[in-house]
């Protein structure tokens, strides 16, 4: 047993260090009294205090914006993604193959491509860029994730239960509401949560479709890091975001993950 190869263990350790050491440094720096984070100057909660003070109002406005967009985008894409998945599952025509390609495309297409094309589209159409344009842009890729999650759930969906509901006196809408949606709910919720997390930290696409002064949180952080040298506050904010994201991911894994398998 002693002669067991050490390489896999070493590799695992390296990968973990590579992935998590920067995050660890960030978290530690958010408590670092040094303004530039190049050396350790003792513990402080100053940056957190600064984050929650009136000086950081624009950060909170950007968080509000991001939440607004993420909630809107995930709710809308839960509806559209579910109906897309239902149609994709139900009808296997050539048209639906094209449809599937279209649904799948935003997942594989580079964000930069989607961002630029949406930006150009908005300019061409002369649409004023606003929170709504960002939300619509996010919906375009969120739909795909919801659709795939629901499609997974549909794999073992016995369609005769819909017939059974109709047979037992349910109208079409009642059958959808009382049977289809409850059975697909884990997939819909999982897709929705995925959409939420993707929307809230999207940078590239948002960058191309946002209006002036309408920074979402990731964009706000970027501009702060670039222009205002407020790194420690960003570190504090990032630590909080990290915690929040972990909570959401933990919830998805714990409650909705089985639906994503299939």
């Amino acid at each position, binding site marked *: 047993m002693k002669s067991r190869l050490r390489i896999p263990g070493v590799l695992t350790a390296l990968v973990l260090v590579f992935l998590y050491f920067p995050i660890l440094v960030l978290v530690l720096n958010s408590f670092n009294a040094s303004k530039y984070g190049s050396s350790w100057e003792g513990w402080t909660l100053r940056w957190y205090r600064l984050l929650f003070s009136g000086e950081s109002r624009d950060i909170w406005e950007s968080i509000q914006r991001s939440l607004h967009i993420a909630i809107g985008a995930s709710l809308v894409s839960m509806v559209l993604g579910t109906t897309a998945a239902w149609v994709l599952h139900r009808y296997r025509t050539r048209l639906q193959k094209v449809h599937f390609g279209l649904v799948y495309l935003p997942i594989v297409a580079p964000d930069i491509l989607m961002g630029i094309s949406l930006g150009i589209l908005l300019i061409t159409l002369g649409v004023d860029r606003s929170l709504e344009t960002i939300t619509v842009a996010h919906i375009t890729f969120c739909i795909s994730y919801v659709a795939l999650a629901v499609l997974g759930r549909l794999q073992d969906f016995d369609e*005769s*239960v819909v*017939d*059974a*509901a109709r047979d037992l006196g349910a109208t079409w809408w009642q059958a959808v509401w009382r*049977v289809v949606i409850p059975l697909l709910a884990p997939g819909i919720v999982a897709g929705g949560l995925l959409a939420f997390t993707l929307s809230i930290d999207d940078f590239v696409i948002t960058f191309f479709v946002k209006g002036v002064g309408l920074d979402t949180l990731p964009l706000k952080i970027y501009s702060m890091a670039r222009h205002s040298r407020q790194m420690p506050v960003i570190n504090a904010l990032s630590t909080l975001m990290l915690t929040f994201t972990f909570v959401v991911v933990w919830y998805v894994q714990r409650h909705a993950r089985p639906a994503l398998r299939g």
Partner: protein
Amino acid sequence: MNEFLVFEGVTKRYGDFYAVRDVTFEVRQGEIFALLGPSGCGKTTLLRMLAGFIEPDAGRILVDGKDVTGIPPDKRPVNTVFQSYALFPHLTIRDNIGFGLKMARRGKAEIAAEVDRMLDLVDLVEHADKKPDQISGGQKQRVAIARALVNKPRVLLLDEPLAALDLKLRQRLLVELDEIHDEVGITFLYVTHDQTEAMAISDRIGVMNRGRVAQIGAPAEIYESPVDSFVAAFIGDTNFLEGRVIERLGDEYSLVAIEAMGEIRVYNDREISPGDEIHLSLRPEKLSIQTSAPAATDEARNAIEGTVEDVIYLGALTRYWVRTGERRLAVERQHSRFLLDEKPPTWGDKVWVRWRADDGYLLRDFAPEHAEMLSLPAETE
């Protein structure tokens, strides 16, 4: 007669393919009527048209004198027991059974009382609060039946309800289903491809083939007097003999020359005259086999000499394949005292196959491909 459920010229077409073609028949109130046929014969299409999931291209379906075509499934006075049970996996057994009553906006107390009555009828009281994936296949089946019956449908539709269960359980549930039918007295339309199931449970059977009803009758009628080679071959097993009428022997019997076998007597199930081509269905269990030459035969009996080519021991009976002339006959022999009293015929033995002339049945229609459905294709060399 009480014509309760009527199919009138019902047709359903998919492109060039007729799933159901001009089907007309009646089901009586309170009977168990089985639609029996191989897969793809149109029986399930008929059932789904009655349930309202498919609309016929032509024809009408009447339930108790009322045309139901065009009415959506949730407004029809029928309920279905689905092949896959189609229970709602997210609801308890109790809520599954109560679903229909809830849709009908009945009071909570009334629903609870009705559901309890149903749970009692199908003997599932102690499983009421479980989910469908926590109970066995047989129990799921009973939930599906209760869920349909609680709505007091005019007709209960059963779509291959036992297909997913193993043989012993199937036989037991068949008896239970029959008891439930006695209790509720509702008309059952029972779709199956299993002839033993259909024979066991139904008052009458409609045998379907290629979108049409080939024959309707009581189980014994269908088995003993099949109209054509399809019905004869699909229900049970048989021998097909084809030949030409030589002469009439009085009113009851005719002498027939059977191809590659010899002359036999047949009962005139229908009007035949010398020179007619006939096709005879001869069930294996109607034939007897013996190793000694029979005494002189009368005009009502046939005896053909042959050689045992194969013996298949099946427990309750033995099946012999006997070569007579240039063809083979399937013979089945029940045995209550098999090895004790006599030495049974075995491979290569010279034997005589005997049967009463009226035990064969003259088919009205014959198609050679139906011979392929038999366990012993009537191969000639």
